[in-house]
């Protein structure tokens, strides 16, 4: 078999070639190298704090990939994914504490439960479009938030729920490193699934609906069914990520699952690149690192002598910079990090004749 290298033009002859994930054998090689690095090298060179940040990156990346399927590929804007993340977290927490369900079935149930909730909040998409649908998902966000806080017998209200230690096949997940493996195995699996959903007839139907829903319906795509499916898949991702997060952090309150979290998820996929699976991973990494950096900076200033007062007053500037980064990205690179990455890659390839 001949080694496939990058051709100097478009020589594709069949649809199968068009749909292929790895255009060159080097792409496949780099992916294998990346996975090897991810599982064999990275967990051993980072300390506990580094792993803690990475675990968050992995969890948010799963949710962001799901949201990108809905917004980037199907074109349905959801402002409720923060709450969906919470639904997954609460489902897993309640199953693990009340019913003693073990870790793996609990997080899968978290995903499935969220998919059902996502379906319910996707139903308005049968009649609503664009802004009206966006606002109805916003309503979903606030209704779910209310339920988290006020259905005390189920969710524990503002006190929240403390989860038992998670175990897989009798092996207790105590360290960040153990969780790192669980999270990133899920991460790779979900990325692989997402990449392949987009290549199937379902994915093509999603893209057709995004590009022009009336034309899609005219071509015989039952758009309502596919919109619901997209809502369900995307909420499954969010719920699964939420359940993983709950198990990892060990205790949950309604506090994190606010409208702000929904916004952060959307910021991830926009900064990463709409309609790009790898872009969502970049975006999740970027936003998580920025958040971590800004809060570390604030904490660092707080500890300096004489600057503690200043640190208190500049704490709100964290929000300012977060907004500024989103705005700058939107104005100067609306297609996100995925596009920057593509340009960097192709300028290497085209060197010295890049234009």
């Amino acid at each position: 078999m001949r080694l496939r290298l990058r051709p100097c033009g478009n020589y594709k002859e069949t649809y199968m070639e068009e749909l292929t994930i790895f255009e060159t054998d080097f792409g496949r090689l780099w992916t294998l190298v990346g996975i090897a690095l991810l599982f064999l090298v990275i967990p051993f060179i980072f300390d506990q704090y580094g792993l803690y940040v990475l675990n968050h990156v992995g969890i948010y990346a799963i949710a962001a990939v799901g949201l990108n399927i809905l917004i980037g590929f199907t074109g349905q804007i959801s402002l409720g994914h923060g709450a969906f993340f919470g639904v997954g977290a609460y489902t897993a927490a309640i199953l693990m504490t009340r019913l003693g369900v073990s870790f793996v079935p609990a997080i899968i149930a978290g995903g499935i439960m969220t998919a059902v909730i996502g379906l319910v909040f996707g139903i308005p998409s049968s009649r609503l479009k664009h802004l009206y649908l966006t606002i109805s998902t916003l309503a979903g966000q606030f209704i779910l938030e209310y339920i988290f806080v006020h259905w005390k017998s189920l969710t524990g209200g503002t006190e929240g729920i403390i989860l038992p230690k998670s175990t897989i096949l009798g092996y207790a997940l105590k360290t960040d490193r153990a969780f790192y493996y669980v999270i990133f195995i899920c991460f790779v699996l979900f990325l692989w699934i997402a990449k392949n959903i987009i290549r199937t007839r379902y994915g093509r139907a999603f893209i057709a609906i995004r590009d022009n829903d009336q034309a899609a319906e005219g071509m015989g795509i039952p758009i309502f069914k596919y919109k619901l499916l997209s809502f369900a898949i995307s909420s499954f991702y969010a719920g699964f990520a939420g359940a993983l997060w709950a198990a990892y952090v060990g205790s949950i309150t309604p506090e994190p699952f606010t409208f702000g979290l929904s916004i952060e998820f959307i910021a991830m996929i926009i900064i990463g690149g709409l309609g790009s699976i790898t872009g969502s991973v970049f975006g999740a990494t970027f936003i998580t690192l920025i958040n971590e950096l800004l809060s570390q900076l604030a904490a660092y200033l707080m500890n300096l002598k004489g600057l503690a007062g200043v640190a208190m007053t500049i704490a709100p500037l964290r929000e300012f910079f977060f907004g500024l980064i989103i705005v700058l990205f939107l104005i100067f690179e609306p297609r996100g990090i995925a596009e920057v990455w593509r340009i960097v890659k192709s300028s290497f390839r085209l060197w010295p004749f890049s234009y």
Partner: protein
Amino acid sequence: MDFFLQLLIQGLSVGCLYAIAALGFVMIFKSSSILNFAHGELLAIGAYIFLVLSVWLNLPIYLAFIITFIGSFLLGFVIERFFLRPMIGEALIEVIMLTVGLAAMFKGLLLFIFSGNTYVYPNFLPAGFNIKIGNISISPVYTATFLITILFLIIFGLFFKYSSQGIYMRSVADSQVAALSLGVNVRRVFALSWAIASLVCAMSGIVLGILNGINVHDLSKMGLKVFPVVILGGLESIGGAIIGGLIIGVIETLVSGYFSTSLRDVVAYVVLVIILMIKPYGLFGLVEIERV
């Protein structure tokens, strides 16, 4: 029955506030189809400018009003020029996210300057505004709100119907391409509508500030409360925004009076979802007929 009437009047007053908070929002949507998530922050900026001028610098009230309005008018221009103009022609979600980013920036700045404290204005409303109906009294602020809302409704109605700028704005909202080809300066219309909307926001912010005190968090929450109000009325309709505001206000106070106060924050959204299922374009919104 007395309790019901009390709640009804209270609800109508709260509804007036929602209506007045929604005006600037509808203004922007009507001319540029932008869903402005920075609305609450615009309210807050107006309220704070007025606070600085009237309380900290001790200017006379009318002068403070005029300078606040000029300032927020310019602010609207600046926002449009530097942030919204590069986004013309971009996808809906990106424009929405831009306003979300702006909201975070403004909120961060306001918190940095004023921190999360609640400030109050000195009382400057005439005492004659205190109205009593039977044994139910209405505080002067609500009367003022009601009058201002009605006044703005009339001004806006006339502006959109008769002035050439208002007609340009409606034409741009209807179809940007058609308006461009007929010689409407679309960019100027956008800039002007942001400036006017920002001015209206400042006014609403001042009214809200008189009533509840000025607090960044409360005012930016108000910005989100505007969504059920405008969607209920239909996004394109200023009259709809006012009726939507009144309906939401009354439902909220009735629910918190008869059932539980904690339901108050969420009931607006429940009503919103139900109405959208029955009437997808709100009560008075433009029904889009689409053809391929």
